[in-house]
């Protein structure tokens, strides 16, 4: 179906961002505009999701230039899932930020950049043109640069250098790959590329281009050995910003990787082995990095790296069942990682520290909150029937079936380390007695008024409920993932929808 509606969520975020510029320094007005904008975009994204699930494909040929000549926007099931996830995270983090962030950050344009970031993410998920994907990537990274360094603390600046350098390098590699791809095929539309790349005689050049894409997206999604910028930068910005970064930014790299390696390049034996080897190393190094960390944020940063390995491994196995696991895990991971990073922010507000040796007694002081936190933490571990359990079964089963025993071992090790780390976090932060007496002065949380508390807790509770829903209603999510995986593994449907669609007058 041809529709302009596909651009609506992107436009809403852009309008919100521009509107916010007129309320520079007016904190209260900015908060309200941001929440309203987010809510409208959230409803539109839900509508887009439902429409896509019902119609199959929503397509917009920009300026009515028919594909492959114009820029195409496509919403297939995979895109619509990512759009829905982005909408959920953007709404919850947006509400959370109104209470969690220091007033000066909001004064100097936090919400303005936030909405541009979300706009870029939505654009990246919806575009069907490889160069346009590059442009959306750039919109996202320049917004993330500003968010990461906003505040100007020394630690943030130092992290900023690593983050900026690696992301710029990744963009250049991505651009190089696009240049070569254009040279050998003469098109930029992803559906058209898929057809043309099959006819290229020089297969060596195609493999090199595929590897360049893998490196570019690999840096962005933090896979071994190019992940080091992530743990050394994600712990520096405030927790609201870290929640978007941890939940969505690295997943954008994974999204692009899945898109490119199912639609444009079908990975051969060699490529799949590269994926699997890299995935094993990513899981092991991420898990080992997480073991000895005392700061919760650093610990979660390494877990992000570790769990990116699961997704890469799923792409590497490259069967439909493994792809179901990837989609399912992506849905679960985005929700849970953002949730945990927001929780970290609340813990920091309550105890002024996120060093787990200096924390303790939260379970006694805040029993209800701890229960909500527990849902998020144990979803991440994947204790049945919580949400992390189902995709992991899929991964274990598929790696056994395809006889990838090293991969299976890495999966088990990574899952075990995740369990160990989260269990330690739970006992140290919630069960253990607090190492020093808590005075009224330290607890910044108890002193907040009702609305601020509500703005902090409601997003976390909502996300916890979403992960409970994913866990207990796994069959419907599984069905959705199955449909998506089927579409991804049979790209001809996508190609047909994009290229042979007659414009309905």
């Amino acid at each position, binding site marked *: 179906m041809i529709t302009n509606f596909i651009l609506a969520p992107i436009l809403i975020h852009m309008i919100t961002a521009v509107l916010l510029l007129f309320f520079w320094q007016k904190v209260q007005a900015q908060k309200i505009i941001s929440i309203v904008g987010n809510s409208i975009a959230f409803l539109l994204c839900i509508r887009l999701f439902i429409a896509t699930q019902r119609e199959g494909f929503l397509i917009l040929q920009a300026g009515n230039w028919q594909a492959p000549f114009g820029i195409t926007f496509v919403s297939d099931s995979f895109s619509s899932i990512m759009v829905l996830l982005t909408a959920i995270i953007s709404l919850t983090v947006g509400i959370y930020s109104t209470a969690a962030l220091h007033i000066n950050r909001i004064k100097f344009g936090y919400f303005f950049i936030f909405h541009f970031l979300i706009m870029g993410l939505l654009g990246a998920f919806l575009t069907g043109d490889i160069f346009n994907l590059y442009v959306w990537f750039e919109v996202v990274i320049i917004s993330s640069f500003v968010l990461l360094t906003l505040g100007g603390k020394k630690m943030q*600046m130092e992290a900023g250098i*690593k983050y*900026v350098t690696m992301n710029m390098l990744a963009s*250049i590699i991505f*651009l190089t790959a*696009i240049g*070569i791809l*254009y040279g050998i095929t003469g098109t930029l539309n992803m559906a058209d590329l898929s057809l043309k790349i099959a006819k290229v005689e020089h297969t060596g050049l195609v493999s090199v281009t595929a590897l360049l894409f893998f490196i570019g997206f690999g840096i962005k999604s933090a896979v071994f050995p190019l992940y080091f910028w992530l743990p050394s930068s994600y712990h520096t910005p405030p927790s609201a910003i870290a929640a978007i970064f941890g939940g969505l930014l690295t997943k954008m790299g994974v999204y692009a990787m899945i898109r490119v390696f199912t639609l444009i390049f079908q990975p051969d034996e060699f490529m799949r082995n590269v994926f699997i080897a890299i995935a094993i190393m990513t899981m092991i190094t991420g898990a080992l990095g997480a073991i000895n960390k005392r700061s919760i944020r650093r610990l979660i940063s390494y877990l992000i790296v570790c769990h990116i390995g699961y997704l890469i491994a799923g792409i590497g196995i490259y069967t439909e069942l493994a792809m179901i696991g990837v989609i399912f895990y992506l849905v679960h991971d985005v929700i849970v990682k953002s949730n945990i990073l927001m929780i970290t922010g609340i813990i920091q507000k309550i105890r002024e520290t996120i060093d787990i040796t200096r924390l303790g007694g939260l379970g006694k002081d805040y029993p209800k909150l701890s229960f909500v936190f527990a849902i998020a933490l144990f979803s991440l571990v994947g204790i049945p029937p919580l949400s992390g359990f189902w995709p992991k079964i899929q991964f274990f089963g598929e790696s056994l079936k395809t006889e990838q025993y090293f991969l299976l071992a890495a999966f088990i090790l990574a899952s075990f380390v995740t369990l160990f780390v989260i269990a330690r976090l739970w006992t140290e932060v919630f069960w253990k007695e607090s190492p020093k007496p808590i005075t009224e002065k330290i607890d910044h949380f108890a002193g907040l008024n009702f609305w601020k508390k509500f703005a902090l807790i409601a997003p976390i509770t909502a996300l916890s409920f979403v992960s409970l829903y994913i866990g207990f209603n796994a069959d419907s999510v599984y069905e959705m993932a199955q449909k998506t995986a089927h579409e991804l593994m049979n790209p001809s449907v996508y190609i047909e929808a994009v290229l042979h669609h007659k414009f309905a007058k």
Partner: protein
Amino acid sequence: MELLLVLLIGILYSAGIFLMLRRSMVRLLLGLLLLGNGANILIFLMGGLTKGKPPILGEDESAFTDAYADPVPQALILTAIVISFALTAFAIILLKKVYATTGSDDLDSLNIQDLDI
């Protein structure tokens, strides 16, 4: 002409990577800039060099009969240049701020915070 451009791209990429591996922050930035320019010229070259042919149809033509210049690579490069301009502007300010807060141009002096867990 192609050979010249190939050599130029090679030089830009190798010089860029060499500079990025240095410890000085300014060289790191220069390296990124050279790499970006190299990528732009690569797109230009890969799009095919056509000398003296217009990329548009004449008034009385409905299809290209002769070889024509491909306008797409130039549009891509223009976009990439604008983007890299913005990124460079940001990166320069960031470097200046880092220099102001740490008082050092050495990238190794930034690793201190990674040592604590």
